[in-house]
């Protein structure tokens, strides 16, 4: 069964719809799936999540959550939906405990009723339960917000950029929690601007300027990368990138962590046989440009490489 179905959703803002936030988006998410919407700021992530959360109306297109239409059936939908907005949206002047029991009451339930579901997360918050939410660290705030969104045991959970403003340690913990929530059969749609978080989802859609660039499992996305890719490094990164871009075979070259990722013009088809020759040529080229500490490796493309490739092509 499909928990989320989105068909040709379009949404514009501004006078005469000058700014197109979503431009004919379609996808579907299976029940119990962890689906990632990956894209930079302004890609349309928040608009999409708000439409699904029944908070704004699409200009065109249909969307269903658990077979309920987001516009027509919004009242029924709201009780089986858990939503965590992009900004921290809890009451900063209320304590952890007070926030949680308030949201429980809003959904007509009690903390005890679904305690099993939030137990893992809540035990971490328990020591601070009388602290005001405003005084919590970024990571703790996010955990509390997740608890509040889960308190009524929603069937679909919509999370808008839960990792923003959270340190890497808490972010990792947060993703671990999402993995555990899947075992309860909750369908999770999560948006993030961090490409590396794509790997933590079952499937992802890469969103850019209101359109979906690609949609697949993270592995599927990576496999779709059709150019040979090298990781190159030398002592002078800036000059390295400049020189690599001027290399005749280069399609693109960008910094990726401690390496520069160099993509070639030619297709991946049958490249394996020539790989060693190309690498030797490259080595030679860089040496002739007086680079030191040269290292050339075949690189496996990541989701970020794919994103860059498809935005560059446009």
């Amino acid at each position: 069964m499909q928990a989320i179905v989105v068909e040709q959703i379009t949404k514009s803002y501004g006078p005469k719809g000058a700014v197109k936030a979503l431009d004919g988006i379609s996808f579907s998410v299976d029940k119990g799936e962890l689906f990632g919407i990956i894209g930079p700021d302004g890609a349309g992530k928040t608009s999409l999540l708000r439409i699904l959360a029944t908070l704004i109306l699409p200009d065109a297109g249909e969307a269903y959550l658990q077979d309920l239409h987001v516009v027509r059936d919004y009242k029924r939908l709201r009780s089986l939906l858990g939503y965590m907005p992009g900004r921290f949206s809890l009451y900063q002047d209320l304590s952890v405990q007070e926030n949680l029991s308030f949201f429980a009451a809003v959904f007509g339930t009690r903390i005890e009723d679904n305690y099993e579901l939030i137990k893992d997360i809540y035990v971490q918050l328990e020591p601070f339960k009388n602290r005001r939410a405003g005084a919590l660290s970024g990571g703790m705030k996010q955990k509390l917000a997740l608890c509040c969104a889960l308190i009524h045991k929603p069937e679909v959970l919509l999370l808008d950029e839960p990792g923003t403003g959270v340190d890497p340690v808490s972010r990792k913990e947060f993703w671990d929690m999402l993995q555990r929530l899947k075992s309860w059969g909750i369908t999770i749609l999560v948006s993030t601007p961090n490409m590396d978080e794509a790997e933590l989802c079952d499937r992802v859609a890469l969103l850019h300027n209101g359109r979906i660039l690609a949609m697949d499992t993270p592995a599927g996305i990576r496999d779709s990368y059709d150019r040979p890719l090298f990781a190159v490094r030398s002592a002078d990164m800036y000059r390295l990138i400049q020189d690599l871009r001027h290399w005749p075979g280069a399609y693109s070259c960008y910094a990726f962590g401690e390496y520069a990722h160099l993509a070639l013009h030619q297709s991946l088809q049958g490249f394996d046989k020539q790989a060693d020759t190309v690498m030797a040529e490259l080595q030679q080229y860089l040496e002739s440009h007086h680079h030191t500490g040269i290292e050339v490796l075949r690189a496996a493309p990541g989701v970020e490489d794919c994103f860059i490739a498809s935005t560059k092509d446009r």
Partner: protein
Amino acid sequence: MEEHVIFTDKLTKTFGPFTAVNQISFAVEAGEIFGFLGANGAGKTTALRMLSGLLKPTSGIAMVAGVDVMRHPEQVKRRIGYMSQKFSLYEDLTIRENIRFYGGIYGLSVQTIREKTKKLVDKLELGAHVDELVLRLPLGWRQKLALSVAMLHEPRIVFLDEPTSGVDPLTRRQFWDLIYEAAADGVTLMVTTHYMEEAEYCNRVSMMVDGKIEALDTPGQLKKTYHATSMDEVFRKLARG
């Protein structure tokens, strides 16, 4: 002792009972890309604001371009460029008007501003949009423009506060191209970021945890010291204490 472009000794800032920056000491050389890493609230922005003369330190020493930040914040401001993620350009002004405004602030002549506008617009390939409101530009373009505008008066030191937050991967790379280019010209850049992968692009990085610099070294050396394969892992090991 060689002349440091930026030098701090036990630099501290407290807000009431809260110590935002706790006795940080470091030195940065000319042409270096120096990264300030840390979680939100670790004190990165506060440290950067003190160094750029926007915030008076509570105690300690900070010398920027040979000027004491504590005593002559105004002189510091004249010698540096500053760009932050939150505020950089006026959205309701056009690109040309923004450049003219910032050029005017730093006392550039009309002629210089005109020349610079042309050079900058050509470089960023914004020619067709120079009379459009900044509001209408995509975020990535805005950030690149903001950096160029922050360097309009050719400062030798530039402070960048989370300049690439939320920007798409391609534009982020292009932004770093600009940073590298400036560094190659001998400009010193101090960058805060929470993308751990961007730490790799810096010559040296300082890891801030709860207001203190917990580690300061080249990315390669840090990974070696903490037996980590990525900066992300270094950070996680540091944050756990």
